[in-house]
């Protein structure tokens, strides 16, 4: 059912594609000679879920961290909502960041705060006009959307890995982002929880009309969520296509991801 819906959306998108993220010739070297990115080029269209595959250490996370300004690239251009984020001031970059959600691999919940405070803290930082009741409602709605309304008073240490990621996602969603960057959303989770997270990603895309970049090694997640897949190898995009296209790719190395 979801799959069919996804195909319909993909077809309709083919007619009108608006790039929302564009990366051109991105280079990044750590230290003196640890070159990770050697000219990455990619585009994410509005409403599209792009999955990036690649071996560990191939620069997938570095690429999405460059998009939100956590890592400064050595060379290249990153355009988000038509603005080159590398030329923006801190204030201008923050305005863009509010529209981009970032789900960290570990969830990155604030340890010293309860689930409620984790979400409310992020919301209050940007919506100082909201009163306590409105904040509480927004927090409850965000938790409801990830199916964890009951966890509102728990501390992060009381949550399982899957719950931490869901709460991390709820914290991201509370700012109603237009783009969500997922850094290995299903890593370290069991198959059932991984499937639930993948379904949640699809659900968010449909309900909130978000565009996403999903970094994953989980092919089941990639199959469920990807409108398009890019494979990163040796610091450049090595292959690109839909799941079905790449599954039958001539390159044995690319095919090995699908085995």
């Amino acid at each position, binding site marked *: 059912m979801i799959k069919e819906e996804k195909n319909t959306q993909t077809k309709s998108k083919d007619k009108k594609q608006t790039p929302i993220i564009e990366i051109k010739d991105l280079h990044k070297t750590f230290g003196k000679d640890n070159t990770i990115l050697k000219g990455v080029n990619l585009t994410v269209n509005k409403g599209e879920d792009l999955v990036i595959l690649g071996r560990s250490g191939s620069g997938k996370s570095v690429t999405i961290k460059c998009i939100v300004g956590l890592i400064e690239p050595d060379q290249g251009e990153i355009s988000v909502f038509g603005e080159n984020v590398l030329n923006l001031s801190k204030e201008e970059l923050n305005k863009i*960041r*509010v529209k981009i959600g970032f789900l960290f*691999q*570990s969830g990155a919940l604030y*340890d010293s705060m309860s689930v409620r405070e984790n979400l409310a803290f992020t919301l209050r930082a940007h919506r100082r006009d909201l009163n306590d009741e409105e904040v509480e409602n927004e927090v409850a709605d965000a938790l409801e959307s990830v199916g964890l309304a009951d966890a509102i008073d728990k501390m992060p240490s009381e949550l399982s890995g899957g719950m931490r990621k869901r709460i991390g996602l709820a914290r991201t969603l509370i700012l109603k982002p237009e783009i969500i960057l997922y850094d290995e959303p299903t890593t370290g989770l069991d198959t059932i929880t991984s499937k639930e997270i993948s379904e949640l990603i699809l659900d968010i895309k449909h309900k909130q009309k978000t565009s996403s970049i999903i970094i994953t090694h989980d092919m089941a997640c990639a199959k469920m969520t990807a409108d398009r897949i890019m494979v990163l190898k040796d610091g450049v995009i090595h292959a690109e296509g839909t799941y079905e296209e790449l599954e039958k790719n001539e390159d044995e190395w690319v095919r090995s991801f699908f085995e």
Partner: protein
Amino acid sequence: MILSLKNTFEQIGNATVFAKRFFKEVFIPPYEVKEFLKQCYYIGYKSLPLVAITGFIMGLVLTLQSRPTLVKFGAESWLPGMVALSLIREIAPVITALICAGKISSGIGAELGSMKVTEQIDAMEVSAINPYNYLVVTRILACTLMVPILVFFADAIGIIGGYVGINIHGDVNFYRYLTQIIQSLEFLDVIPATIKTFFFGYFIGMIGCYKGFNASNGTESVGRAANSAVVTASLSIFIIDMVAVQITDLFF
């Protein structure tokens, strides 16, 4: 050798930029009053028992150690004044600051270090929340204000410790003891000693935050950040004290 020297200068340079940023960010809204008060509670109130015990022991031991020498010269009556002067001018500020370096600086270093390696600081950054403003400014400000208060508290408890010490060998009225202390003290004994405690507080907070904020990835670096924060903060306390004493000596 040259590389290590280069790293040291690089560290000093980075720490200076980090420290300078505080004076700019402290005036920029949003003012995180709730977090600041929370830090004051942890840094100030939670350190009271430790500071009280050490303050009392400092006063007691100082009295007991000084008494035999003063008795030899028949100057036993100078004991309250001497103990109070030593405590207020030097011992209480330095010992309290060292205790704070061990408890607070390492705590801040470990807390921010673990936030850094678990990407919590990055999470703030990508949510367009200024982590320096929320985490660093509040902690440095709380340290700068709480350490002087803790030193005053240690002074008071130390004086009580001194009273107990004197009464082990004699019988001195508490009112008379306090009168002797007040008569021997001048404002110039208290003011320079108080001013330097603000510097102690600022550096304890700043070094803890700097070490934690710059912890590299990996859990090992959290321990290293905490350890390094204590060592650097303790060393800086002695350096500030030396400079403060020299300046006081020049002007007063």
